[in-house]
C-alpha cells in the first residue's frame, strides 16, 4: 500500500503546485488537499477536501483518509487575502495547534513535514553572518509572520516530544522566489521604484520555487528528521539585486521608511511590515551545511540564478542594460569607441 499525503493550505499557489506534483509520485497513493476555500488552479490528481484546520474536522479527515504524511504549508506570510492580521494569526497559530492536536490523535500518522521560514531568525545588527539551525534569533520576533512562524515551530517541537514515533521535519526556507511567486519579497521587487533603507545593503538569500517543491518532496520521501535551513548557494546584496533587475531604487532613511511602509502597506502595493523592514536593513544569511550533509538535498538554483530567473520573467527595468536611460548604455558606447580604436591602431 502506498502513502497517503495530506497537504494543508492548498488554496495558495505554492501548496497547490506541491500537492499536484507529489500526486504524480509513484510512491504516493493519494494526496488530500485541505483548505477553507477551493484552489483556483488545476490540482490534478489531488482530492480536495474543504475543511478548516482551525476546527476538529481535520482530525476526522486524517483518520478517515488514513493519512500517514502531513505536509503543513498553510502558515501564511501576508494577511492581504484572508482579511486582517487577526485572521492571519488565527489561521497560522490556531490552525497549527488544531492540526497538531489532530495529528497527535491519529495513530496511523508517521511523518510530519512543516514548511517554516528563515524569518524566525529575525534580523538585527547583532546577528551572526550565517545562522545555523542551532542558533536562535538574537531578538525574538514580536509580531507578524515571524512571530507566527516562531510559535508554530514551538508547537511543532512540542508535538515531536509528545509523539516520538512520528518523524518531524521542519524546513526553514529562505525567501522563495520564482517567475510566478506572490510573496512579500517578490512584490517588493516588482515595484517600479524600489524603496530601500538609506546606508544599508542587506545580504539576501533566495530559494527558487522549484527547489522548494523539490525539497518538500525530498522530505516526504526520505526519512530524515530534524530542522533544516533551505536556501540557494551564495548571497547577493540588495544593491546588487536591484542593479541586476535594472530597477531604480529610492534610498529612504530608516525613520522615514516606517511611514512610507505603512502607506505602501495600506495601498496594498507591498507588505512593508516592521520585520520586513528590519530584514531589508540588516539582511540575513542562513547556513545550509546541514541541508546538504544530513538531509541530502542539493538545490538546483543558486541564490543568484534563482534571482536571475525571477528577473528574466519580470522583464527589463527602467535602467536595465540596453535601455536608453541606462548609464550602462553610455559606458557601452565609450567602450565600443575604445575597442574600435584599439582595432584600428
Amino acid at each position, binding site marked *: 500500500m502506498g502513502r497517503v499525503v495530506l497537504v494543508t493550505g492548498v488554496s495558495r499557489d505554492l501548496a497547490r503546485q506541491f500537492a499536484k506534483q507529489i500526486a504524480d509520485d509513484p510512491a504516493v497513493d493519494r494526496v488530500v488537499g485541505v483548505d477553507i476555500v477551493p484552489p483556483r488552479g488545476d490540482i490534478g490528481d489531488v482530492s480536495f477536501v474543504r475543511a478548516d484546520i482551525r476546527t476538529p474536522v481535520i482530525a476526522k479527515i486524517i483518520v478517515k483518509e488514513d493519512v500517514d504524511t502531513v505536509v503543513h504549508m498553510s502558515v501564511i506570510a501576508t494577511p492581504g487575502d484572508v482579511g486582517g492580521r487577526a485572521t492571519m494569526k488565527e489561521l497560522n497559530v490556531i490552525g497549527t495547534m488544531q492540526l497538531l492536536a489532530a495529528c497527535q490523535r491519529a495513530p496511523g500518522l508517521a511523518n510530519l513535514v512543516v514548511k517554516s521560514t528563515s524569518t524566525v531568525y529575525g534580523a538585527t*545588527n*547583532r*546577528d*551572526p*553572518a*550565517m545562522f*545555523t539551525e542551532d*542558533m536562535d534569533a538574537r531578538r525574538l520576533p514580536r509580531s507578524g509572520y515571524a512571530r507566527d512562524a516562531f510559535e508554530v515551530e514551538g508547537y511543532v517541537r512540542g508535538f515531536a516530544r509528545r509523539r516520538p514515533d512520528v518523524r518531524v521535519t521542519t524546513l526553514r526556507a529562505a525567501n522563495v522566489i520564482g517567475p510566478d511567486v506572490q510573496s512579500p519579497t517578490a512584490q517588493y521587487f516588482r515595484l517600479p521604484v524600489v524603496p530601500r*533603507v*538609506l*546606508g*544599508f*545593503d542587506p*545580504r539576501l538569500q533566495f530559494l527558487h520555487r522549484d527547489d522548494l517543491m523539490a525539497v518538500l518532496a525530498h522530505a516526504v520521501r526520505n526519512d530524515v528528521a530534524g530542522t533544516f535551513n533551505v536556501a540557494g548557494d*551564495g*548571497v*547577493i*546584496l540588495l*544593491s*546588487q*539585486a*536591484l*542593479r*541586476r533587475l*535594472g530597477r531604480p531604487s529610492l534610498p529612504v*532613511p*530608516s525613520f522615514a521608511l516606517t511611514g512610507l511602509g505603512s502607506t505602501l502597506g495600506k495601498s496594498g502595493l507591498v507588505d512593508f511590515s516592521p520585520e520586513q523592514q528590519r530584514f531589508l536593513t*540588516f*539582511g540575513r*544569511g542562513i547556513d545550509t551545511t546541514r541541508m546538504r550533509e544530513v538531509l541530502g538535498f542539493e538545490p538546483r538554483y543558486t541564490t543568484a540564478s534563482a534571482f536571475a530567473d525571477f528577473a528574466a520573467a519580470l522583464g527589463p527595468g527602467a535602467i536595465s*542594460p540596453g535601455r536608453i536611460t*541606462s*548609464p*550602462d548604455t553610455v*559606458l*557601452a558606447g*565609450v*567602450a565600443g569607441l*575604445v*575597442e574600435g*580604436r*584599439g582595432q584600428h591602431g
Partner: protein
Amino acid sequence: MGDADIIPIGTGGRPGRGTGSRRPSAAARSLAGKPPVSRQGATERPGGAKPADERPGQQANDGPASAEQPALEASVSDDATTETEAGTSAAESRRTAAEESVAAPRPLDATAAAKGIPASDWLEAAVAAAREVFGEQWEPRMAELLAFWRRRLTGDYQVDEFGFDPELTQRFLMAVLRPIAERWFRIEVRGLENIPAEGGALVVSNHSGTIPVDGLMTMVMLHDHAGRDLRPLGADLVFKLPIIGGVARKAGATLACSEDAERMLKQGELVGVWPEGFKGIGKPYSERYKLQRFGRGGFVSAAMRTGVPIIPLSVVGAEEIYPLVGNIPSLARLLGLPYVPITPFFPLLGPLGLVPLPSKWILEFGEPIRTDAYEASAAEDPMLVFDLTDQVRETIQQSLYRLLMDRSSVFG
C-alpha cells in the same frame, strides 16, 4: 634677407590673439563678425603691403603663419594636412586668400561658426587626456576600467557570504586609504614574515585613536605588503550605523561573535580582532599605550577551536591622531554611542578638527602564538583561555614599550 631679422609682432590687423600664431583662435573668429571682416580685407591690403616684402624671406621659419586664410578654410575639414599644404603654396595663396576673403567672407565665416571645434579635435583631446591619466597603455586600461564600471552598474560581481566585495575593496577603499597610510602616517611595517602566506590566522591588535583608523590602516598594509585581505571583526554598533555598516560588510568585516570568527577562520581567512574594543579607542590621551582589559578572551577560544595561530600586532602612532581629552557622556547616551570625543581640535574647529594629526606609525607583527597543540577541549578550560589571553596581551604591551623607546618623536 637682412630684413628677416624683424620679428613680426601682432597679426597685422587680422583677427587673432595678437601672438602672431598661425591661425586666429576660435574665440577671435567668432568675434570677427561680418562688417569687421570686410573692413579687415580692405585694411589688410595697404597694411599688409609693407610686410609683404619680408614675407618670402621669412618663409623658412615663419612659413605657415602667412598662409593664414587658407589654413582657416582648410581647418574646417582637416587640420593635419594644412601644415604641408600651407607651406608649399604659401606666397601665392596668400594673395588669393586675401581676395577671397573680400569676395566671399560670409560663407567662410558661416561655416567656421557653425562647425565650432571639429569632432576630430574633441577626439584628439579625449585621447590626450586618456593618455595623460592612464599612461601609454591607455587603451587596454581604459577598456578595463569601463568594463569594471559596467560590471558594477549591472550588479555582475560576487560577494561572499559575509558580504565581502573584494573588487570594490581593492579598487576603491584601498585606493582611498593607501595615500593616507603611506603619505600621511608614513606607516612602517615590521615583522611581515610572521604573516602566513595562506590559511587561517588571527591578528590581535591594540586599539586606539578615538575612531578605529588603526583597523583600516592594518587592512591596507596587510593587503599591500602581505597580499592578504584582513577580515576585521567589528562591534555590533558598527553594523547598526547607516553607511558605515554597509561599507564595513563590503570591506570584509563581520560581527565580532564567536560564530562568525570561527566560520571565517575555518575558511582560512586572516581575521583581525581588537579585543579592547571601545575601551581601547575611547580611552583618554593620558592613558595612551596602556592596554585595556582584553574582553572575555573569546578570540582566544575561537583560535583554539579552529587551531589557528594568534599573531600579536602592536600599533604605535595611532594614539596621537586624535588626542582624546574629554567626553560628552550625556550626548553619547542620547545618540546611543559609547562616547562623544573631545579632542584639542574637535569640535572646536568643526570639520577641520576631523583631520587626524600626522603622527608616524609603526606596525609590528609579533611572533605567532600557536594554538594547534592544545586539545579540542582546551577552549572550554577558562583558566587556560585566560592565561593565553594574558600572554597575548603582555606580548603586545611589551612590544609597544619597545617600539615607543625606538621611535624618535611622535611626528618623526
